[in-house]
């Protein structure tokens, strides 16, 4: 039996959780059981079946409305103790890492974090994951009766949703009451009108070459036309031109989109660590010697203020926008 702890947002099963479910169905580890925790989660339960779950363990309660480590970890631990899965998977998101890390201690189970590749060999999880800030790959193995792994966003493919699928739903009562939980989510401010970097299929990023906060305008326009997330190099974040949440690289986000367009980014080793697994990399830079051209699939040597707007216009025409 294999557990997949799922995450959801705005009544949708998170993309990263769809990927984790898809991978679980392909591991040949027996029944795939999705764990769905939250409040009013019946839709998420249905979606979990559509994306590959054979069974769902559901905990539906007001104390679970917002994610908090304590009640979620307690539930995952209880579910594992009652059903004895061989493996537990989850997406390697901020919440997934917290729940799985916490539960691994209670369950005394080996956890392999943030994996790009995953298989079962001789009953044990075997995974490939980036280490040393993405500069080296490690093959890691787990041992023991229960083994856990978190899966990197966009490293695995979800199944095509099959709306005819459904199955048994097991209800799990919350372990902790509100009075037992020592943390409280006071407010949540959704990042509006922007695509999350780690989920994005396309990322358009600006670097030092944009010259200032306003220099991001053409980069942002290209991102909008492509439905892409907006990225940035460390230099622009440190200069205060754009908030930290946009930073791609070793001390920012590590991303693997299908397409990464780097405008005015020289491509320091720290930046490369964050984006080198993109399928296609496009570099637009004035300096033909910029290290980014050593990594790029396609390139334009030229001023981003001329070439990026031209690219925006070319895509507008071709995509009918």
């Amino acid at each position, binding site marked *: 039996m294999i557990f997949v702890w799922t995450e959801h947002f705005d009544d949708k099963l998170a993309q990263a959780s769809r990927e984790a479910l898809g991978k679980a169905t392909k591991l040949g580890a027996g029944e795939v059981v999705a764990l769905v925790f939250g409040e009013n989660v019946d839709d998420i339960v249905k979606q979990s079946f559509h994306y590959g779950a054979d069974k769902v363990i559901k905990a539906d309660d007001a104390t679970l409305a917002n994610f908090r480590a304590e009640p979620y970890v307690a539930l995952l631990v209880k579910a594992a103790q009652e059903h004895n899965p061989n493996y537990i998977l989850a997406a390697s998101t901020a*919440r997934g890492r917290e729940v799985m890390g916490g539960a691994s201690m209670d369950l005394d189970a080996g956890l392999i974090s943030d994996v790009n590749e995953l298989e079962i060999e001789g009953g044990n999880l075997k995974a490939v994951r980036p280490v*040393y800030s993405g500069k080296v790959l*490690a093959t890691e193995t787990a041992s023991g009766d229960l083994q856990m792994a978190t899966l990197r966003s966009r490293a695995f493919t979800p199944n095509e949703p099959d709306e005819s699928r459904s199955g048994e739903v097991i209800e799990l009562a919350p372990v902790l009451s509100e009075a037992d939980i020592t943390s409280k989510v006071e407010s949540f401010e959704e990042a509006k009108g922007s695509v999350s970097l780690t989920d994005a299929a396309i990322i358009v990023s600006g670097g030092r070459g944009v010259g200032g906060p306003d220099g991001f305008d053409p980069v942002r326009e290209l991102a909008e036309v492509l439905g892409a997330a907006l990225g940035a190099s460390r230099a622009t974040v440190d200069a205060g031109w754009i908030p*930290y949440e946009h930073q791609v690289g*070793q001390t920012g986000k590590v991303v693997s989109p299908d397409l990464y367009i780097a405008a005015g980014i020289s491509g320091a080793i720290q930046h490369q660590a964050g984006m080198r697994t993109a399928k296609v990399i496009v570099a637009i830079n004035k300096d033909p010697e910029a290290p980014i051209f050593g990594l790029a699939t396609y390139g334009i040597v030229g001023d981003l203020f001329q*070439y990026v707007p031209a690219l925006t216009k070319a895509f507008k025409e*071709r995509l009918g926008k």
Partner: protein
Amino acid sequence: MHVVVCTKVTPDTAAKVSVNDAGVVGWSEAPVINPWDEYAVTEAVLLKGDHGGQATVMTVGKQEHEEALKQGLAIGCDQAIRVWDDALEGHDNLQYSKAAAAAIEKLGDVDLVIFGKEFADTQTDQYVYQVARKLGWTSLGAVAKILEIDFNASTIKVERLLEQGKAVVSAKLPAVIAVLKDINEPKYPSFMGIRKAAKAEIPVWNLGELGIDVGEPKTKVAQYKNLPVRGSQVQLFDGTPEEAAAKLADKLIEEKVI
């Protein structure tokens, strides 16, 4: 008030890291304090400045990790502790976390444990949540700001940066937090600070003193390998902005990445 920061040394972010023919990882520069921990150590010293009390910098590791402890002392932490035991050789995250949690318990009066976002070498943060669970304390990862902290009332309110947006979360102390780089501007040691830190006696606690057995590792690295070399040479598009853009746009559509 007693704040503990857990740190270690890792290769410098600018270092070239590679695997040699024997499968051993090496790097080009001397190791430095884990880059994410600069913010964690600074936050401990800032909290001490604002609220008084004590800041301890701790590592679970061999002697080379004392460099990170010295940086903590040099910018203003009061004491440093190193935890090590031969039984920790080749440790996994669970073993690390059991040792770290036991050392924090031994310190006795800790209100807050601060970690950096992750360790840059093993590239994981699972120990943050493992340590919290072992201690039975609340964990708060991805902390971008401490909005309020009251050591007398034992409360903390933080802003967390999650995938879909920002959450403001309040919790009771003691707690374990992992901080992101927008939490502060890192402090760098002064000459006097470095001199003082160089003279510090750093006690080493072994597992016997901590009264624990960390068991066997449950995850292991079987192999390290270098990254595959990316593609071949870059294909450049030239011409006027309109010409180059048209050719590039057609190519990307043909590649089905748009």
